[in-house]
């Protein structure tokens, strides 16, 4: 936590200090970045995932973002593993879960149109790839939204998908590596 935040006793609303991600039992570090806007209906899907992960005990590694890409990149500097969660708008059935490994190919930038800023998630990942600034491991999970109009609350299929994704991330807390193993396994799960 930054000195001033510590000094201020300010707990940033729903967020910690992304510059100091939690470290796992192996000295590695993990960051789960949830991107969205709760006031644009299904664009808030990743933030609902964040809520559930925090309730499940992963608050120390979960951060919320509003979608400005450079801010996402800055948080990767001292992180070994990043799980990015965002809403997608690809035309797939609402609630569909997409999973991307940026090292296996370019991200479909149009998927993330509803990120608030046009230098958003996909641009940040691709720029970091070009500049050699990607963390050693980064996976992007996206929940297909159905409604991005102004207003709060997710549509039903998207709410179900957000809960499912969060539960999969949380699913293996009993193994020696705890949540971390669950997340890694989740990242490697080809069925997602």
């Amino acid at each position: 936590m930054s000195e001033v935040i510590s000094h201020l006793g300010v707990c940033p609303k729903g967020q910690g200090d992304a510059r100091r991600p939690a470290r796992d039992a192996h000295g590695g570090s993990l960051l789960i970045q949830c991107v969205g806007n709760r006031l644009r209906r299904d664009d808030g899907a990743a933030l609902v995932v964040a809520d559930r992960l925090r309730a499940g005990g992963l608050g120390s590694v979960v951060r919320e973002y509003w979608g400005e890409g450079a801010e996402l990149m800055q948080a990767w500097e001292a992180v070994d593993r990043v799980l990015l969660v965002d809403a997608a708008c690809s035309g797939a059935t609402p609630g569909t879960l997409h999973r991307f490994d940026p090292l296996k190919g370019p991200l479909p930038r149009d998927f993330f149109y509803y990120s608030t800023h046009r230098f958003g998630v996909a641009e940040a990942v691709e720029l970091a790839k070009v500049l050699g600034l990607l963390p050693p491991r980064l996976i992007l999970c996206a929940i297909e939204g159905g409604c991005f109009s102004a207003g709060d609350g997710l549509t039903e299929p998207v709410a179900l998908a957000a809960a499912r994704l969060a539960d999969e991330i949380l699913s293996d807390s009993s193994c020696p590596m705890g949540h971390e193993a669950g997340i890694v396994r989740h990242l490697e799960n080809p069925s997602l």
Partner: protein
Amino acid sequence: MSQSAQSDTRVIEVNALARVEGEGALYLRVHDGAIADLKFRIYEPPRFFEALLEGRDFRDAPDITARICGICPMAYILSACQAMEAAAGVSVTGPLRDLRRLAYCGEWIQSHVLHVFLLHAPDFLGYDDSIQLSRDHPEVVKKALKLKKLGNQVLEVIGGRAVHPVNFRVGGLHCVPRRSAIEGLTDDLERGLETAIELTRFTAGLAFPGFDDDYLSVSLRHADEYAIHEGRIAGSDGLDIPVSEFETHFDEEHKAHSNALYGVRKGSRGPYLVGPVARYNNNQRQLSPLARELAAEIGLGETVTNPFRSIQVRMVETVYAVEEALRLVRGYRAPEAPAVEAMPRSARGSGCTEAPRGICFHRYDLDPDGRIQAARIVPPTSQNQRQIERDLRGVVERHMSLPDDELRWVCEQAIRNYDPCISCATHFLKLTVERV
């Protein structure tokens, strides 16, 4: 995007304007080589922040309005704070004022650098985006990212976090940052100044599309400093008024094709310009000697009439903001108290600060208990919207002979001159050019 061309009719349609904060559209119809219709549309639903504030305690306004924008929250926070302080009859001076100005410098640095290198510079170099730019100029983009991070760092130290800072309140701060945290910025700011100078010189090599206009430049002006977070409202037409008289001289009009309101100068009902170029035109003599020297070196005169040179002005202002931040850090004195007390009373208060995109005006009417009875927020992009349309007319007339793709390119580039924050202006943008 769709295009059509028939005899004397040309149609160009772009359904989403990229690299602009938010959602919006430009519709352009050209008939027989002349502009038949041009509409710059903003169609994000209005955010209704003004209505949201009604009935709330006056102390809630800074944190609520900060949510209007993730890029320039300081503009909303401090404009709201100043309005409430004016209503309460208190002023924030000395070290607390310096901390506000320091935080605002952080916002200018991060916002300007983000816009210049990740959103706008690709236009000038023929790249579709900053990813292509980074393939050819990786070190430039890396340095820009570091400089942007420095701006965020300044905001974090004072505000607790860079996006939607949480430590500002009516009357000052919730908590005074540690001296060591402020002084800890010194080395990074010294390095950041060198980077800012280098990146400013990078813009000297850009090619600027031909177009000039005689702008009515409107900005804050302060007797003792390059106005950032405080001052009177000044116009290049001689206007010099206190912030409280803004609504006497400026108005907003609604047009059916846009959700955002159009700012106009009362009387002439004409457009006016706010933002970096307006500030530079009105106040460039108050920039630091280094910033003025750099401005001259990269080709800026005392007045800027080509809006495409706004990218250079942003970098000159970035250099100034880093210098100013360094000055404030080196001279830091801890305030005796984190805030001055502001007691509620039935009153009207106005506040205005220079968001990176231009002046951001707030006015609130409070009841005796400090409940907000009415709120009015005039963000910079809505003030610029009419001027953007006028620029687009001029740019299209000047570049009418270009093929559709190139004309579309220069139109998008012209809109980005304003770093429009559409989400703020509607309280999100598409591009359509039609030649018929």
